[in-house]
């Protein structure tokens, strides 16, 4: 055993308490890990699907923007998008899932109509730009959802890793070590008791011998 323990009754009581706590903690952490894992699996699948979808849509939108850019001069394009009409503000509410704080997002748009996104007059810009801006606006709700899910996944993954380490540390180190300590102390105490008993018996024999002189009589 790596650590030396004092073979005393007090230490034994302490170790027994420690073992009970460790066993309870192990069980609880194990349950936490399993539940976290279950939720994580659902979330991560959603994350992957969303990511694939969003990436595809953004790539398409980018293509639209390249087209739009080809159709008009850079100055016109820049000035068209220079002063955005829409502004998004984000509100983050933390949600507690098995002691992990994951964010949930609500967005507020500046104008009443969220589709009010064209910050330019239609006279000097090509319709490609309209298409591009629309396609991006369509992806945006998914992007928001993706951010929420992906961040949750990251936070949960690190929490699962931490919990798993704790469970393993308890299962393979703390609990066996404490059990070993308890065994050692019990054996040591039993041994002490036996030797005390033997000593007492011997002393009793010697005292009786002194009083009655058995050996001389026989």
């Amino acid at each position: 055993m790596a650590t030396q323990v004092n073979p005393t009754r007090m230490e034994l009581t302490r170790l027994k308490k420690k073992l009970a706590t460790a066993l309870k903690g192990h069980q609880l952490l194990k349950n936490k890990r399993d539940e976290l894992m279950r939720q994580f699996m659902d979330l991560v699948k959603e994350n992957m699907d969303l990511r694939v979808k969003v990436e595809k849509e953004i790539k398409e939108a980018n293509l639209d923007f390249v087209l739009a850019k080809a159709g008009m001069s850079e100055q016109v394009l820049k000035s068209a998008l220079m002063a955005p009409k829409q502004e998004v503000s984000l509100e983050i509410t933390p949600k507690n899932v098995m002691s992990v704080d994951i964010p949930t997002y609500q967005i507020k748009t500046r104008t009443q109509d969220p589709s009010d996104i064209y910050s330019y007059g239609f006279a000097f810009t090509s319709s490609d730009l309209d298409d591009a801006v629309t396609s991006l606006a369509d992806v945006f709700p998914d992007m928001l959802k993706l951010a929420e899910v992906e961040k949750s996944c990251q936070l949960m993954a690190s929490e699962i890793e931490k919990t798993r380490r704790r469970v393993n540390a308890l299962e393979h180190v703390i609990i066996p070590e404490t059990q070993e300590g308890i065994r050692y102390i019990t054996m040591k105490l039993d041994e002490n008791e036996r030797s005390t008993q033997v000593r007492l018996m011997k002393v009793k024999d010697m005292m009786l011998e002194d009083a009655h002189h058995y050996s001389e009589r026989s």
Partner: protein
Amino acid sequence: MGDYDSIYGFAAVGLTIFPTDGLSDEEIARLIRQTSEGCGIIYMTESLMERMKNELQKYQDKISPAIIAIPGVSKNTGIGIRNVKKSVEQAVGSDILFENK
């Protein structure tokens, strides 16, 4: 956040854009630090994310900001998908879900 060509469209949707063309790594790191105080989500092009990988690690365990990779016009590295796989690996121990993707 990313090169101007990849992100200027997002201004129309209402997002604030931070072009990083011509900025050095330290300048971008400072920009990320500053924006992370006021923003809940930072969408970042994959190429920039790949470049600032080490800097971004310290934001990983914080609830805000969420730094999310998006594909840019060019130099996409697939880091977004890779990050999802990394989460699975971190949680499960090995990538059992998306091995084939």
